């Protein structure tokens, strides 16, 4: 156990990361050198950066897989065990009995989204593309709040057992209405924020939460319900970012009215 286990896993994860990087980097190389014939400005720096990306992602994934995911999964199961819930003397037949699960879902959803590397990348680009108006941390916190809400509502749904598609369809209707009223400049970024939450960190922990909970609540299908949480997690950030943009606009209009 211990060091040996980590080293075996290292090469496995490194290989998957390489498989992920190779096609896209070869495509860029072929286009840049053979078709466009425009060599990169600082080839050695880019190469060093690529090595850092590959090694960094490998470390990151191994660390999550070995340490954080098993723990998160275990906690989700422990929190929904009868033994834990009866400690607080709640009525087990009511959906409110699982309130610690809902709180945990919100916290872990927020926390994993803050650490999501693809969201950090999008936030950096959004900051520079907006000329600094959109702050990197601001966007990340709004998206994380969206995921926290999504997981809370998603876990409540699993316990109550309302069909998933009702929520999804209502969610997209809300998004469409918001799209009509939101400032046009934020729309593309808002939609992209929904996509990035289905990336490396959030998916495994969210799926584990859904599967863990569905296996405890009678009459739930772990395969379907685990997936449902991911669908929620990619819908709510869109709503959160659009709502935040509208709020900012509203506050601004109040200020201009006063002066």
């Amino acid at each position, binding site marked *: 156990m*211990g060091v040996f286990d980590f080293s075996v896993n290292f090469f496995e994860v490194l290989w998957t990361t390489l*498989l*992920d990087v190779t*096609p*896209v980097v070869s*495509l860029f190389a072929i286009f*840049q050198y053979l078709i*466009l014939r425009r060599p990169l400005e600082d080839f050695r*720096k880019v*190469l060093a*950066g*690529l*090595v*850092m*990306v*590959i090694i*960094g*992602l*490998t*470390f*990151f*994934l*191994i*660390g*999550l*897989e*070995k*340490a*954080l995911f098993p*723990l998160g999964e*275990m906690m989700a199961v*422990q*929190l929904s065990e009868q033994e834990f819930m009866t400690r607080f003397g709640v009525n087990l037949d009511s959906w409110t009995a699982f309130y610690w699960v809902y709180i*945990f879902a919100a*916290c872990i959803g927020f*926390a994993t989204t*803050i*650490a999501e*590397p693809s969201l*950090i*990348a999008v936030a*950096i*680009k*959004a900051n520079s593309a*907006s000329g600094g108006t959109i702050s990197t941390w601001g966007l990340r916190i709004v998206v994380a709040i969206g995921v926290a809400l999504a997981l809370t509502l998603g876990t409540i749904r699993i316990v109550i057992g309302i069909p998933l598609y009702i929520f999804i369809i209502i969610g*997209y209707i809300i998004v*469409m209405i918001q*799209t009509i009223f939101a400032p046009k400049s934020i729309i*593309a*970024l808002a*939609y*992209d924020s929904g*996509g990035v939450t*289905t*990336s490396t960190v959030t*998916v495994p922990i969210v799926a584990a939460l859904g599967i863990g909970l569905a296996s405890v609540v009678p009459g739930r299908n772990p*395969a379907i319900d685990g*997936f449902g949480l*991911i669908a929620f997690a*990619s819908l709510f950030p869109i709503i959160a970012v659009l709502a935040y943009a509208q709020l900012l606009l509203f506050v601004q209009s109040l200020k201009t009215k006063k002066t």
Partner: protein
Amino acid sequence: MNWPKIARYTTSKFYSALLDLLPIIVVILVFQFIILQKPLPNYQDLILGSLLVWVGLVLFMEGLEWALFPLGNSMAFALTNKGNVFLILLFAFTLGFSTTIAEPALIAVSKEAARVSSVAGFIGAEEAALDSFARGLRVSVAASVGFAILIGVLRIFKGWPLQYIIISGYAAVVGLTFIAPEEIIGIAYDTGGVATSTITVPLVTALGVGLASSIKGRNPLTDGFGLIAIAVMMPMIFVMIYGLIVL
């Protein structure tokens, strides 16, 4: 080499990555000790794992600025300078296709999809039928992501508003959900996430923002984003159509 400067720079990078990971650490510690009131199981693994996550995030973030952003950016400028629309669209399609076809998550999902469809009796149980179904699914998802990036890049050039593409796309998703075979629906929704790997997102975002900044009359914020959103939506549509045809 200016060592003190390098040391300061490195420390600041490690510090900011620690801030990114702080919420996870706090949530886990609070729930384990205060709410569940249980000791941490094999804490050695936990500490080693957390250190790996920390170092990994620092390296990744630095590599992002050194490699992935410049790659996406310089490609955007090179493509617009060349001004050959066919070449740009070819690049866009190949980019989406090649990043998706080898995606481990997609390979896993398509095998599972073949198994599910075979159990439900939609396709034969023999190896060849399973393989051809899984391959067809993989190619159609990869083609859909390629098509999505192509549409997205074309949108940046033409300045089409994103919301019309997204709204009509999701209207198609909802409509297809009613007529597509039930077995394929869950799989279709699942494939939406395959195009958003941690490598693809920064590259595609840098490409989009780069294109929007180098084309006259386009705003990097309004027009540069949106490629990811289309790439998430398109596989759902394609997979449900695939299900309608094959099953």
